Every structure is written in C-alpha cells, then in structure tokens.
C-alpha cells in the first residue's frame, strides 16, 4: 500500500532550508555564481526562457548565470554532449526537473550516446515541479484562469502554485486547471520533488527567497562551503517538518491527479514504450496492493 505521505512525496533529505539572498537576486543563481567564482563548478546545464520558448542552455565561465524562471523546462540535457565532448567540462551543475535528471542519470550510468559523463557532474539541483508547460500552453492556461492574456514573469510556491505577471500581479493557479495544460508526460510523473538529486529547489513569493531541500552529503557540502565563502550573501533559515506541510499537501493534490491518469491509462490498456518493463502497470499493482512497499528504491 502506498501512502501519499511526505516520505513518498518529498522523499528523504538531510535538511531543508529557506534561503534568502541579501542582494535581492534569485538565491539559486547566487549560489551557482559563487560556485563558479570559486571554481567549484565549470558549467551549468539547464534551460532558459527565450520569448515563447524554453531552450537548452549551457552556462560557462563568464556567462550570466540563469535558472528557469517559468515552469517551462525543456531540453536541458540536449547540450550535455557539447558540454563534455566539446568543452571538456568536468564539474557541471545541472538545474532541471527530475525527468531531465533521469536522462542525465541514465547517461551517467550506461554511457549511452555520450562519453565521459560519469564523473563530470558536480551538482544536481532538481526543480520541484508540478508540470512543465510550453509557451502556448501557458497562454491558454492564463486565459483560462483570468480570461485575459498576460505576460508571466515567474512562478513560485506559496501554499499553492502562483504566477507573477510582468506588472507584478499574482495569479493563483488551480491545480486541476494546471493539470489539463501541462505536457502530456507530466500527467504520469511521480517524482515531482526530484528525489535522488543533491538539492531540490523551489522559488518562493519574494524573488530573493527559495527553499533548498538538501538531500545528499554533496549537496550539504556545497551549501556549507558557499556559506563559508560568502557569508554576507545569504541568510539561511532551517525549516522544520511542519514548515514543509504546505508544499506536501500541494504535491499530494497534484500526485492524486497524476495517479488518476495513470490508473485510467492502465485500465484503458494504452501502450507504454517497448523497453520500459511496463512501469505504469508496476505502479498500478503497487497502488492496489495491501502490503507495504519499499518505494524508496523504486523508480517509476
């Protein structure tokens, strides 16, 4: 039996902290900049918004550090080969939602399609994610929610999911509406909180505030050494379990929507990719089973 508790939804972690950047910048961008300056990383693999699109983005020394400001994260791994085979980067930070990090993990583990990846990644930052939207999908969603076309500047979580427009207006996003507009595959996603990364990141209401859920030893070392390097830049506040309750219930609501779609898909008998060992069916069985299940090890 699966319970949609915080162990399943957030997964295990060492510490959760709320980070405030004193310069007013995005705390993750600030963290990565410090890491660049102190040579802890030599590249960032991510995606960024260009007009209506999300494009794969590789930051090398001297470039401006950017992390995705909208929940539109496509193509992050597309430049992996360039980063490694061409630029020979060896300490790459990746900022992406769990699905893209899965692609990276897989390339590290097997080596399919790209050489020398195994030891080239210095940090994996997973973006907590309730679904990714193309430009058109965001336009339609905002029209649906407000009846008007608006220019959205960023997304953040504050109890629920919110958009902030260029003009500063805040739009609360109804999750069942959101569920309708997100990328098709996101409807079957079960790793919204990017378990298995070094740090899970999500932005908060103020642009200079964010939550880091630090999961690994490596993630913790990074935060500690950045804090040591530039103590004046950040203010950290340790979060207690209760502080994460808001995000847990948001994830629960979204996970339930996803699970409904998975169950329906299995019941309809829709096909899955031929090599994936029928992952949705596996979930279906677990969901319907009575006994306890060790989902920590499972990869859906």
């Amino acid at each position: 039996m699966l319970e949609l508790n915080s162990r399943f939804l957030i997964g295990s972690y060492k510490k959760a902290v709320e980070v405030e950047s004193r310069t007013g910048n995005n705390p993750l961008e600030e963290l990565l900049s410090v890491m660049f300056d102190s040579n802890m990383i030599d590249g960032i693999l991510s995606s960024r918004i260009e007009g209506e699109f999300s494009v794969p983005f590789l930051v090398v020394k001297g470039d401006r550090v950017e992390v995705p400001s909208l929940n539109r994260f496509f193509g992050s791994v597309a430049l992996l080969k360039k980063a490694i085979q061409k630029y020979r980067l060896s300490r790459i930070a990746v900022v992406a939602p769990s699905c893209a990090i899965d692609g990276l993990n897989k390339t590290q583990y097997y080596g399919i399609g790209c050489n020398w990846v195994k030891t080239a990644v210095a940090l994996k930052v997973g973006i907590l994610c309730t679904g990714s939207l193309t430009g058109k999908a965001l336009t339609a969603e905002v029209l649906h929610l407000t009846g008007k076309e608006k220019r959205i500047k960023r997304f953040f979580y504050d109890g629920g999911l919110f958009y902030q427009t260029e003009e500063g207006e805040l739009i609360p996003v109804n999750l069942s509406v959101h569920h309708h507009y997100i990328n098709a595959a996101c409807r079957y996603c079960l790793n919204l909180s990017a378990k298995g990364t070094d740090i899970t990141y999500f932005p908060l209401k103020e642009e200079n505030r964010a939550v880091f859920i630090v999961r690994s030893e490596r993630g913790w070392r990074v935060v500690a050494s950045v804090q040591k390097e530039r103590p004046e830049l950040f203010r950290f506040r340790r979060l207690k379990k209760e502080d994460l309750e808001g995000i847990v219930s948001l994830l629960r609501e979204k996970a339930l929507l996803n699970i409904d779609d998975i169950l329906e898909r299995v019941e309809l008998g829709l096909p899955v990719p031929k090599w994936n060992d029928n992952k949705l069916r596996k979930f279906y069985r677990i969901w319907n089973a009575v006994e306890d299940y060790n989902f920590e090890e499972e990869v859906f």
Partner: protein
Amino acid sequence: MTFHRVSFEDDDLKLKIGFIHFSSCSGCQVAFLDMFEDAVEIFDTVELVYSNLLTKRKEIPYMDVAFVEGAFCAEDPHHVKLIKELSEKAGMVIAIGGCAAFGGMRRFSCGSQMPQPSHQTFIPLTEIESIKRKVKFAIPGCPPNPSLLYNFFLAFLERNDDFLLPFEFIAQSRDASGFDLIKEVVNKGFCVGCGTCSTACPSRAISFKDVCGKPNFDADLCVRCGSCLAACPQSFKPYPQPVYT
C-alpha cells in the same frame, strides 16, 4: 549466465572473447580501442582469442563471448560460413552497433554495385534464427560510445544484471531508430522533453523543437543506430537509481 568451456588450460580462468566482423565499417571494433588506456586494462583482464585486427589466429576458436559487428550479407559465402561457425563456436553473441543490432545503415543498401552487384541482402544478427538464441545482448550506437562499451564490459564481467537487463530487451526488439523514438515515446505521450535523445544522436538527426518542447527528428540524417531510444529516460530507467557523488 553460464559459460561453457571446452578445455581447462592455463589462461582458462579468463573469459575468452572474440571480435567477429560482418558487413560493417569496423568502427564498432575500433570504438573498443577508443577507450584508450582503459582498453589495455580490459584486454589484460580477458583473453582475446580472436580478432582479425588484433590477433594472429586464423581459425576462429571457441569463444565464451563473441562481440559481433555488422550485418549478415546473404550473398556472401564467407558470411554463410561465419554464421555457422558462430553458432558452433560462440557461447554467447553480443551484437555491437546499429548494423548488427538493428540493421543500421545497412537498411539503405540496395546492391547492384560493382564488382559484386549481387550483394543485396543485409540482415542484422538479431533477426537470424540460427544464432538468435545466442544473441543475448545488443548494444546500440553507430558506433557505440567507448564509455558505453566500457561500462557494459565491466557490468558483464561483474555479472551486474541490473545494468545488463535492458540490453537483453534491446536484443529482442529488432528495430530502434529515430522513428521508433517518436513512435514509442513521443506518440505515446511519454516525452518529457529532456533532450537526452538529442545529445545521444551520433549523427545529429535530432534537434530540439522549442515550440513543443520535444525532439525534432530529421529522418534523412538518421542511421538507425538506436542510441536515441536507448538513451531516452522514458524507454527504460536504471534500477535501482544510480547515485553519483
């Protein structure tokens, strides 16, 4: 996995491997050497009993594992003989590269070229009944990446079944190309838009389609190597999830 051995001589504790070459460009075998220094270590751990390129032996001896590249050409009497030898002398066959695994570029061959216009029929090893049951694993790529070959080799020596399992699936599946990526992943609603397929494509047949956040497949450039589908996190995932520090 069991390895049948014919004799128990000195070097016998080492795994006997061979490289066999069908209709191919030899790139897959060379890719093994492109592990550079690591290749030397690997060739030191196993016993390379046959390779036209690297050993002096003329007759194919018994091999625990035969790494085979290239597609079978039905009009070539030597290939007919090779297939027979493989079925007798190889404990296991591993099809390396697109040509051997899914046909690869050989899917475009149509024959009628001098001096032997009769060479027209090219069949990947995974489709040949007489050795199919021996073809336990198939490795995608054109050629497979040296890193993949290295990891595969280690996993094989350590009998790491978690690692090897997908390559067993791949050996059963015959077709894998950019078309199959679209068919298996994108069309079925599983593409998350991560871009891994685009990175994995050795011929740059897959770019990224910003407008829909999905791969953009240019069939003209595809050499049917299967890398994209194999690399896609939605085709199969490593299990348990690997963690690197």
